[in-house]
């Protein structure tokens, strides 16, 4: 399900399936997208930040078109205890690899992988980031 911002319209609440993972997409070329994500974060229930939220930064292939500081996004990830993934959607290989990563994360968040919970997975990712 795609949405340009949160909160989701309440009219369709009863029709909506369970949400297992929220991916916030930030376009490094658009300051507006970061601001939009920051305001939308306020509408997310705290329980989601136990491994069911991730930030996806797109457009990182073009260093010269940066409107956002990478530090700002990494700090956002730290503040909300959620992983930050970087990708370039215009490169087919990277796009496919990122999609696979997200699907794997989704499978874990939905409880389809026995023995791995969303929370344990996220702390695993954080540990490898520090290394």
């Amino acid at each position, binding site marked *: 399900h795609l949405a340009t911002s949160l909160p989701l319209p309440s009219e369709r609440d009863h029709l909506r399936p369970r949400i297992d993972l929220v991916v916030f997409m930030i376009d490094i070329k658009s*300051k507006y997208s970061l601001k939009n994500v920051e305001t939308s974060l306020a509408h997310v229930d705290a329980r989601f930040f136990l491994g069911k939220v991730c930030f996806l930064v797109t457009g990182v292939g073009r260093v010269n078109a940066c*409107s956002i500081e990478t*530090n700002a996004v990494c700090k956002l990830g730290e503040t909300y205890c959620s992983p930050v993934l970087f990708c370039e959607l215009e490169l087919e290989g990277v796009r496919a690899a990122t999609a696979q990563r997200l699907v794997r994360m989704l499978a874990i968040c939905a409880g389809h992988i026995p023995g791995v919970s969303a929370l344990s997975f996220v702390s695993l990712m954080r540990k490898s980031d520090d290394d």
Partner: protein
Amino acid sequence: EKADPQKTAFLLRKAWTLYSVTPMYGFRRARLRDYARLLGAFIAAEKHKGLAVEVGVELDIKVALSSLADIRGSELDQAALLVQLSSRSQGSSRNSEDKPVWWGWFCSVFGDELSENVPEHFTCLPLFLSHGAESYTALVGSWFQKTFDCCFRRLAISPLNLSWMVAMWAGCKLDRAASAVELVFSVPRLAQPLDISYAIHPEDAKALWDTVQKTPGEITQEEVDVFMDCLYAHFHRHFKIHLSAAKLVKVSTAIASAHCDGIVKILHSQYLPGVLMLLTELAISQIQ
């Protein structure tokens, strides 16, 4: 630290194309006359090969290399190096003057980060600025690359860096009436490309920056963000357009103007060192 305004007047009000240059090997300041002769011979030879630069009158290109001693930041910086190409058309009277057709200069203003870590025999002048025909830039560039084993790369300026520049320059104190602070945005993903030009009265821009900046002489990313957010919010209030979603491509102030393709124009001699220091930093981060 202040450059002599007379000597550097020719640097002002010209559109300079920016490049980053890796450290040059084996460059000796004492041999400038030799280098000028060699470069001149190289250009003549390339023209002979049929890589003619300008069609029409047969032009004799004269090369002059000189040092601009005043253009440097600290003692660690090398003095700037100026390359000037002039033409004297053949067959004209003996008293014909040389007409400058191309300028290029290498400089380093507080480029300590690079020069501190460089081995012996290397000269660090990471910022290169050129004005004139692109074909001459290519000739001069390829001679320097071959002779000193260095590498030239076009220096692009990201929207992030452009917003630093406009915040810094809009906040500068100017004695006489200043021109408007202008930001040009390009709107992505439209069938017809759309440019938005946002002009702000220089006094308003300076007043805004003064309320944002906490420590004079110091600028933080947060302060630049607040400054830009105020400008975006103001624009959105009036036109319902989120400029923060567009790409900032050019900024203009009374001090200087800069375009994301890596083209700058410096308008005020007093702030020349400050502008060059910022550009040197950009050039160094592209090299590293």
